[in-house]
């Protein structure tokens, strides 16, 4: 039975080893089960999260940017549909370059654009869409959508673009919107995810910047289920977001346009303000620039023109232009002196054409002088010598203090960025800066608004408004956000005696209404609309002694750059002031006084528009309706 025995050995070995192998198999199954336990039970939650992240995409929906309207609801900044096309590098078959070439068959694309897109794709994450072209015509956009099945990775998109129908008129008031810069992203403290959206634009400068948060609105979000290729399967939920607020300005578009048209060839700043509220009806800076151009991107040529023009269109002149206020400042000197009791309305000073202080002679603009004058006449004729003597009596301390109370020497606090504060000198500043004490002669010069004294046209408008209304008004541009009015406390009365203020007002009325007044030629004949005002001229060059003898050269005969600045502050109507106005025309100091005639026309227009009964302005909300 050896065979049988061997048989048994063979079978025994097989059985033993089969059991051993079975044990090994059981071990492998244990490993599999253990691994599944680890993946599904221990780490299950983590993988579930990852699966959800896989499946769910957040799509940010850009809110529509709020409009900006004038006080009568005229749209100054609109959002219109912007047909554009994006490329998602990751979804292109055969690379971005091929996709761009294919796209160029459907819509016109320049080589520059192609190179830009390919360059951007190189540095970007594959799933981030790259903007190829925008502001496509409807025809191009429609054709693109037809060809879409043959264009891989191409995404048509309807965005929005900003439209400024009045372009240059409002360039500095509204500002513009432009692409988000890396700097903006860094400063994005609120963490608004919109800034990461391709092609998203935020406000730069002006109201667009100052109220960007309100105008921008809140991002909507759409949670969508996507498959592995990024195709949206269905929308899980949708948060519509909130459209940006409409912003109602205090501006009257028609008045703004009127002023802009008259000033557009000048380098000038002008403002019209409500003397009771400080609401600005016009805030003009010329020449302007077209904010629409910034929206689509300024070409190098345009940029060169903007930056190199001697009329400096990029400077917001009413807010950031510094000018010696010149004779307009005499109102300040007069008010300060009257209020301080340094002079009385009937105090007389003599003008002999020049005033000597020590060894130095200070000249009056009128050769031969004005003779004996009281303060009203001093203002009416704008006598320099009169105010040299008033300033000398008053002293720099009283003068600078009064100037500050009237809104000079510090920013007015208008809502939009970029304002500068002008300058009012004082003893401390002089000592610190020049290591020299204040000189009396400097007080004289300051008294007629020359020397160190500098003011912006907006400050001059505030000055006019404060003089006219007797209240400490501050300017504002924005009346309401959406249906919500921005409340402001009523302005406090000015800390000057009513009598003193009245005397200055009467003097200013004389300027523009009495024969011999410096603005008499430009008076408003209708007494109901009559204005008061004060002219001013700011020299930009030194008049030599020799020239004084031979006669001061006529401004019209000088090169533009050397002509005096022409200034005018005014208010109307004379008996119960409602509007104040300031116009500064750089190198515009001509005998024709364009700044005076313009201020007159602007004040007339503003008053006439009141009479037309259009003063039911601003959005009507329920609270208003019940009133």
């Amino acid at each position: 039975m050896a065979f049988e025995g061997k048989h048994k050995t063979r079978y025994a070995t097989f059985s033993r080893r089969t059991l051993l192998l079975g044990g090994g198999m059981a071990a492998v199954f244990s490993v599999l089960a253990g691994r599944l336990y680890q993946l599904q039970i221990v780490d299950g939650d983590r993988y579930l999260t990852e699966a959800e992240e896989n499946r769910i995409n957040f799509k940010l929906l850009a809110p529509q940017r709020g409009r900006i309207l004038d006080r009568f609801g005229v749209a100054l900044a609109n959002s219109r549909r912007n047909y554009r096309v994006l490329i998602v590098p990751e979804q292109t078959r055969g690379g971005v370059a091929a996709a761009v070439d294919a796209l160029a068959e459907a819509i016109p694309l320049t080589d520059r654009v192609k190179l830009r897109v390919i360059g951007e794709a190189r540095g970007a994450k594959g799933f981030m869409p790259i903007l190829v072209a925008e502001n496509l015509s409807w025809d191009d956009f429609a054709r693109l959508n037809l060809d879409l099945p043959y264009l891989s990775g191409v995404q048509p998109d309807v965005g929005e673009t900003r439209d400024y129908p009045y372009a240059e008129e409002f360039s500095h008031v509204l500002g513009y919107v432009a692409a988000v810069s890396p700097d903006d992203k860094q400063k994005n403290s609120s963490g608004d995810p919109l800034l990461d959206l391709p092609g998203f634009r935020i406000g730069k400068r002006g109201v667009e910047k100052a109220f960007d948060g309100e105008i921008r609105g809140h991002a909507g979000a759409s949670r969508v289920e996507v498959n592995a290729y990024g195709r949206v399967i269905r929308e899980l939920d949708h948060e519509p977001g909130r459209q940006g607020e409409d912003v109602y300005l205090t501006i009257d578009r028609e008045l703004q346009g009127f002023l802009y048209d008259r000033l557009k060839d000048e380098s000038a700043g002008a403002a019209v303000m409500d003397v009771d509220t400080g609401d600005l009806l016009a805030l003009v800076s010329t020449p302007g620039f077209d904010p629409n151009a910034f929206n689509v991107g300024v070409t190098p040529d345009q940029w060169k023109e903007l930056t190199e023009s001697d009329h400096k269109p990029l400077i917001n002149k009413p807010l950031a232009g510094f000018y010696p206020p010149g004779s307009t400042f005499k109102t300040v000197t007069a008010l300060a002196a009257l209020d301080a009791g340094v002079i009385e309305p009937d105090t007389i000073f003599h003008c002999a054409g020049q005033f000597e202080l020590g060894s130095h002679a200070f000249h009056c603009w009128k050769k031969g002088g004005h003779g004996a004058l009281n303060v009203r006449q001093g203002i009416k004729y704008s006598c320099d010598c009169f105010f040299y003597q008033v300033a000398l009596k008053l002293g720099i301390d009283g003068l600078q203090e009064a100037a500050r109370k009237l809104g000079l020497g510090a920013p007015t606090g208008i809502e939009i960025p970029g304002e500068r504060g002008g300058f009012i000198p004082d003893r401390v500043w002089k000592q610190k800066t020049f290591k020299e004490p204040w000189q009396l002669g400097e007080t004289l010069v300051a008294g007629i608004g020359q020397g160190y004294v500098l003011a912006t046209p907006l400050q001059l408008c505030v000055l006019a408004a404060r003089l006219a209304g007797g209240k400490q008004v501050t300017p504002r541009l924005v009346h309401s956000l959406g249906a919500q009015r921005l409340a402001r406390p009523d302005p406090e009365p000015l800390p000057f005696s009513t009598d003193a203020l009245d005397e200055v007002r009467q003097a200013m009325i004389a300027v523009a209404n009495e024969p011999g007044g410096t603005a008499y030629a430009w008076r408003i004949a209708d007494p109901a609309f009559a204005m008061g005002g004060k002219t001013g001229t700011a020299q930009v060059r030194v008049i030599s002694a020799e020239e004084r003898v031979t006669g001061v050269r006529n401004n019209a005969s000088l090169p533009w750059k050397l002509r005096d600045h022409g200034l005018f502050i005014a208010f109307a109507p004379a008996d119960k002031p409602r509007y104040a106005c300031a116009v500064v025309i750089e190198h515009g100091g001509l005998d024709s006084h364009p700044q005076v005639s313009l201020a007159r026309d602007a004040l007339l227009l503003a008053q006439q528009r009141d009479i037309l009964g259009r003063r039911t302005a601003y959005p009507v909300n329920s609270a208003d309706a019940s009133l």
Partner: protein
Amino acid sequence: MSVHVYREPPSASIRQKLVQIDWPLIGLIALIACTGFAMLYSAAGGSFSPWAGRQMLRFVIGFFILVAVGCVDLRVWMGLAYPAYAFSLLLLVAVEVAGRVGLGAQRWIELGPLQLQPSELMKIAMILALARYLHGLEPGQVSRPVRLVIPLAMIAFPVVFVLLQPNLGTAALLALCGALMLFLAGLSWWWIAPTAAGVAVAVPMVWEFALHDYQKARVMTFLNPDLDALGAGWNITQAKIALGSGGIAGKGFLMGTQSRLNFLPEKETDFIFTMVGEEFGFLGTMALLALLAVVIYHGIRIAMRSRSQFGRLLAMGITVNFFLYIMINGLMVMGLIPVVGIPMPLLSYGGTAMMTVMFGFGLLMSVHVHRRIDVPRHSSGII
């Protein structure tokens, strides 16, 4: 010399054989296959096309093959072992030559509408041939170099040609299956221990000199899938997410987001197990593993009950092969070994694999049905 009395059992009728068939095992196999249909139905987003319907048809055909193969006398299979091996090897060589001639890497032969993968045929043929050869050897004889050369060659030829295809997964499967059959036949530990040591040394060498770049890349991705989560590591990362996100009870039938949204690659083939994990959770995967384990248990029991060494080796060869499929696929989709392209038997979509597996179970069934036949050591079967 004692006379061994060999009794030919009365040849059984087809009806008797059908009664003998291990129907519970077939029931188990059908249950597993049904899980596969459900997953394929779900993978198609709740549709029988394109996968579930065809797979069901194949299973039905496979079922008849299984029963038919099971009813054929074990000795007939023994007789067919060498010719089948020779034929399969020939096809394998033919495919390789065709590939060299200019068709690129090719793994199958076109037979009209059918695609015949010689490597799949070889899995069965090699088991048959090894069982046939080892049937006649005592444990002591197996370990003799002279005797060992032949089965080693039987394993080596197909492994080399499959590697040349190149198909690392199948080559590993063939090599492991063959080695385990030698082990079961009683190969001496004196051979096994040094070989195991040798493999440990050889693996780094193979890595350095023999692997294709894409194979190396697969291994590298496997070792660090997060390195390139959207590239080559995508498969394994997404497979793990699918499995893990199923949690304890799963997301529910037809509710698997990873599969439905196509995050899961090759979900209908190699990665079908992860779908079970995603939709039915830990409970589902455990139940499925249990079913598969019971099938293996059945296989082992059939092997142990067979009177003939050929039957035992054949049954164990088929069972081991089935087990290796599960092991390699399971370890692969769970991120424990590189992705090598081995499907999950009975579950993964694929015609050839289904036929091979069902044919294999047919052979197992044949061993079961003919378990009482004692095949003499020097018998060469019935031809």
